[in-house]
């Protein structure tokens, strides 16, 4: 066995998959702008992807905001910088934690559900049946999910920002005994528009990636229940990895000097 050959083969396989996913994404996006459109299905996916994800996103961001306040307070006390707590909470939430946590949570919840549903439709020939009934599966199944996820994740993240900051406020004011007015003032003092906007851009990209991976793996699934199971796992794993990579790249684009 030549180890270099093994590495090379693995690398080529990754490139081939990346190519297939890009082709799939390009096809899907091109169908977004060509009629017929299915507004009813887009609405249903909004409900499914956005609305029903509210509780899980709300809970994760609430506790993240709370723990951030606590951690930064005890950490910063070592060099008497406790006053930075509010700023740390709001910047970390808007720039990083809210989009990444919401993205990962939605990847687990929605990405898996999309892959399972579309995968089942594939192996039970429902996707073939769509085609024979003059309906393009890309337009009917994939476009509504991509649109709904891309639009609803920024909204979720905005709500998550607010809840996370509120969580920090609760811990700051009721546990760490900051003055409420001072805490709010230092929350807004150093916050810039780009902090929030970069988080929302991340959210839109993450939402697209989650729906894309769910659809791609579901659409390509083969071989019964086992194939659908594998598609579900792959959708969540690839979406999570892509979220973390994209997170770095977008941060670099926004904030690197």
């Amino acid at each position: 066995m030549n180890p270099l050959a093994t590495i090379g083969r693995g690398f080529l396989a990754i490139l081939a998959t990346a190519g297939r996913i890009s082709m799939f994404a390009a096809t899907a996006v091109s169908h977004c702008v060509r009629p017929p459109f299915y507004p009813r299905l887009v609405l249903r996916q909004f409900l499914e992807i956005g609305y029903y994800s509210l509780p899980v996103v709300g809970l994760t961001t609430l506790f993240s905001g709370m723990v951030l306040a606590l951690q930064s307070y005890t950490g910063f006390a070592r060099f008497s910088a406790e006053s930075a707590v509010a700023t740390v909470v709001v910047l970390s939430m808007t720039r990083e934690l809210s989009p990444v946590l919401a993205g990962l949570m939605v990847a687990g919840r929605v990405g898996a559900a999309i892959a399972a549903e579309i995968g089942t439709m594939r192996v039970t020939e429902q996707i073939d049946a769509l085609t024979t009934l003059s309906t393009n599966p890309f337009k009917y199944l994939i476009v509504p999910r991509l649109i709904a996820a891309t639009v609803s994740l920024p909204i979720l993240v905005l709500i998550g920002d607010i809840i996370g900051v509120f969580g920090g406020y609760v811990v700051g004011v009721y546990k760490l005994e900051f003055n409420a007015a001072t805490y709010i003032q230092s929350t807004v003092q150093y916050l810039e528009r780009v902090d929030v906007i970069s988080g929302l851009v991340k959210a839109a990209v993450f939402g697209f990636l989650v729906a894309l991976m769910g659809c791609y793996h579901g659409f390509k699934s083969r071989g019964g229940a086992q194939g659908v199971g594998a598609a579900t796992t792959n959708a969540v794993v690839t979406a999570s990895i892509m979220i973390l990579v994209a997170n770095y790249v977008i941060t670099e684009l926004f904030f690197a000097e």
Partner: protein
Amino acid sequence: MNDTPTSAHPKIRIRDLRKSFGSKVVLDGLDLDIADGESVVVIGGSGTGKSVLLKCIIGLMEPDSGTIEIDGENVVGLPRSQREDFMRRFGMLFQGGALFDSLPVWENVAFGLMAAKHMDRSDARKVAIDKLAQVGLNEEVSTLSPSELSGGMQKRVSLARAIATDPEIIFFDEPTTGLDPIMADVINDLIVKCTRELGATGLSITHDMASARKIADRIAMLYQGRIIWAGPVADIDNSGNEYVDQFIHGRAEGPIQMAVRRG
């Protein structure tokens, strides 16, 4: 071998169709003609490629080579959008039913009417309920989800869906499998009605010889990737072909060897 049909312009003309999956050859130079308004039944052992043949004709699978002409136009290798125009003229009953489990029964049946014929929902619903009645399902069933139906009921719903748009060419992949003998005969009658009375061209697959005798004008037998015999349904008992004889009488002994180990 294949009998040459008298009609000069068959509705569907298949020549030298080949399809393999990896090293497994499924269709191996298949020829078949289907005249306009004719009902052809393809018989053959399990796994010989009957469903693959149907999927190649309807455009769900791309054959490796060969031609499939519909009204004289070769559809193999046509770009997606043109292929979709042909699909509007087809109806298909899938072997596994393939009902949309996210939609109620009536929307399954009305799906093609709304998608291809742009009928509005309330009109499509009326047609759907009428088609459901034709397959022996009453209005109460129409609001159920497909997962709430028995296997035979699902089969009938998918039959109703396949014929709902009054297609020119209808493909039935094992329409009577899983039905009781009486309901099977009702379905046979319905297929006969669609093809003989409404003039649609039909291509059916079945293992059920009683059904084949009833719905077919012509029977074709698929074996090892080719049509080894085709002829009018009246000739099936004197085909002079030992493969056909073995198949229609369901004998384990004969030229067709099943890949099972005995004793």
